[in-house]
């Protein structure tokens, strides 16, 4: 009983005081989701992120000699848990990685007040690219609008889009609706017919109604903005309705090896845009083998490590580590503060040479950020499923930056007005 009281007292105290346990180093929490409905897609990414930071600790003793304290806070992809994790970690954290559009939307306005940079690689709100308005938010290296633009660019390379019919199969959720403004704008200027087909959260696994509509409308292409169970549902439905797989393209979150493994050969030709690619010959993979796999310090397995999502996790942590590295070099100290990391993320310059130095050639396109450009707009590859794995089906394709920048500026302004008084990034004179 005495023991129990002490336990309860410790718990109550801990809860009231917030996470007070102290650890040394650069505290970079990750709001992970290894449980819940999206765990299958979450685990490989989380493993990649964790392994990269642990590799840095094991191989180089951290970044700039300071160990990285990479901690996961489990959210199960639930917004409520996400906010709990954010509140728990924000006291000491130099960055927050929210990992869901819902959590991002909630944390985004708070980061301005708490002054913590928010790193949402390849997800979140596309106008975050406008660093003049979103001082603390980063969505390197590509936003959803960039992704949509690259897909349209690729399709135009296959033949003029004028008069074609493009179905946009998307999750009926802020994430799925994100590229709509861009696609609508482009449908008008390029003269194709856009057919948005929403998939409700409850219909993810049973999309027969949506695919019936696709069969009736006979679109030339299907662009898919799916996540979690929706991808597997759509791909199996497409195979069942005998939709030509080569005319189906997904966003980077819809390019998960496990989803395609379900259909195997039948999924041949399916494409997904991506800003990361697994390169088994990259020096980093050998280092991972030596420092983590052989001593048995990884939660991953060889099959997962060869996949697209694991390598994406590596790339995400690399971008964060690089931001820390740049900030350390600029401010001349090891233990950097959140606002110093913000400067670092704003001044990323990942050239081909730098990527080679990091041992990650070919795993992410080179890009750089600035105070006005918080995305980097690196460009991406179209990956194609060959029946067993994803292969690169195109050279690097760049998004239509001019059209996107215009839209970004307008939407960012709208956001700032709706959230007035919104602090702008006045130091940025670009």
């Amino acid at each position, binding site marked *: 009983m005495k023991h129990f009281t002490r336990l309860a007292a410790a718990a109550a*105290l801990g809860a009231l005081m917030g996470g007070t346990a102290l650890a040394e180093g650069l505290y970079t929490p990750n709001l992970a989701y*290894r*449980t819940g409905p999206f765990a299958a897609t979450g685990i490989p990414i989380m493993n990649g992120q964790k392994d990269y930071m642990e590799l840095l600790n094991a191989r180089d003793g951290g970044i700039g000699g300071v160990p990285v304290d990479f901690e996961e806070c489990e959210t199960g992809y639930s917004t409520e848990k996400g906010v709990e994790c954010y509140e728990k970690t924000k006291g000491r954290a130099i960055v927050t990685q929210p990992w869901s559009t*819902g959590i991002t*939307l909630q944390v985004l306005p708070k980061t301005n007040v708490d002054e913590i940079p928010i790193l949402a690689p390849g997800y979140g709100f596309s106008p975050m690219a406008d660093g003049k308005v979103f001082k603390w938010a980063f969505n390197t290296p590509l936003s959803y609008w960039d992704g949509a633009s690259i897909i349209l660019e690729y399709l135009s390379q296959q033949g003029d889009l004028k008069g074609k019919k493009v179905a946009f199969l998307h999750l*009926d959720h802020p994430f799925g609706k994100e590229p709509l403004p861009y696609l609508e704008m482009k449908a008008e200027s390029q003269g194709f017919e856009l057919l948005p087909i929403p998939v409700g*959260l409850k219909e993810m696994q049973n999309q027969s109604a949506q695919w019936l509509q696709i069969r009736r409308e006979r679109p030339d292409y299907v662009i898919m903005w799916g996540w979690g169970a929706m991808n597997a549902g759509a791909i199996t439905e497409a195979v069942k309705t005998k939709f030509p797989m080569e005319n189906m393209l997904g966003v980077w979150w819809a390019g998960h090896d496990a989803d395609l493994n379900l259909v195997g050969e039948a999924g041949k030709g399916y494409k997904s845009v991506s800003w990361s690619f697994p390169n088994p010959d990259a020096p980093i993979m050998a280092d991972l083998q030596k420092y983590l796999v052989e001593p048995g310090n990884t939660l991953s397995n060889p099959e997962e490590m060869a996949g697209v999502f694991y390598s994406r996790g590596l790339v995400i942590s690399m971008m964060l580590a690089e931001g820390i590295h740049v900030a350390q070099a600029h401010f001349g100290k090891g233990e950097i503060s959140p606002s110093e990391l913000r400067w670092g993320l704003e001044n990323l310059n990942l050239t081909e040479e730098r990527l080679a130095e990091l041992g990650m050639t070919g795993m992410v396109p080179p890009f750089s950020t600035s105070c006005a450009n918080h995305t980097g707009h690196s460009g991406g590859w179209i990956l194609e499923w060959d029946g067993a794995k994803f292969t690169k089906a195109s050279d690097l394709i760049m998004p239509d930056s001019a059209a996107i920048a215009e839209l970004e500026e307008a939407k960012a302004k709208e956001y700032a007005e*709706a*959230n007035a*008084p919104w602090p702008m990034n006045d130091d940025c004179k670009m």
Partner: protein
Amino acid sequence: MLYRTAGQFKTSYQADQALFPIRQDAVLLGIILIFAWAILPLVASEFAYQTLLIPILIYSLAALGLNILTGYAGQLSLGTAAFMGVGAYACYKLVTLFPWMNPIVAILLSGVFSAGVGVLFGIPSLRIKGFYLAIATLAAQFFLVWLFEKWGWLYNYNASGAIQVPNLEMFGVYVAGPQASSVVQYFVVLGVVTLMTLICINLTRGTLGRSWKATRDMDIAAELIGINLMRSKLTAFAISSYVVGVAGALFVFMWRGAAEPNLFDIPLSFRILFIAIIGGLGSVLGNYLGAILIVGLPVVLNTVPEALGLPISSATVEHLNVMIVGSLIVFFLIIEPHGLARLWALIREKLIIWPFPH
């Protein structure tokens, strides 16, 4: 000992019918109120506000609303989350259409809209009962969430389809939105919840509450002794939906800061129903106890391994958490099927007659 009632004589009917016939109850409540209003704000951290105090209060209020309908009037409802959504969206439209409006007035007004919708969906209750009525409220749940998704006007045609709480000022202090401090939000929530609880306690003790209970216990008998069933049921729907709507507005404006339609989907309805059932149907206190168990306990459990320095991964903690909370729910329901409020009532009874049990 603590609950000695000896020497507390009632000399008038009024004293006998008072809210607290036993002095110790009033003292206990006083202590809790002092804690909530004065001591907790002095010691609580940002984390405690955002993950424990504010959500527990809001969930309690939502469960209180449901309890009026299900616990007192006996009308089973599975649409609580949708009515919360009506409150939240109404509040969003009010503050964006009339930016000069006082946020607290807007929150209290938004309940009126959910009350209207609640009455509308309550009309079937005049003909159907029990599980059949539950299905009718389930229809409200599906329909309203669908409406939140499809009716662009509700979210001001925002591209993401979500509502974002703007910064709202009141007497020069931010009370909602990212600029608002947690202490201010806590006091607003506490104020509204205290007020609502006070009203609800007195409503359930009064004529209206008695007619609800009569309807719940046996509607034919109630009708025979002259209770207008239509009035009784529809007022239960209206007042319940009003409270739930206010809770929904607080949920988004004082806590979440942003909301997407599927937030108000069935899992939230079930969560609130669980709070009401585990706390105890037909009680006011139970809602608070239930919310502490279902909303507060997992948060506290999550911090235990870290506070003790145990090296358990975050995902494992989450799994353990689900198991512990789940078994606690089963445990409490086995030892007292009528909920935590009844458990407290039994303890109180024992304390009163202690040390001489019959």
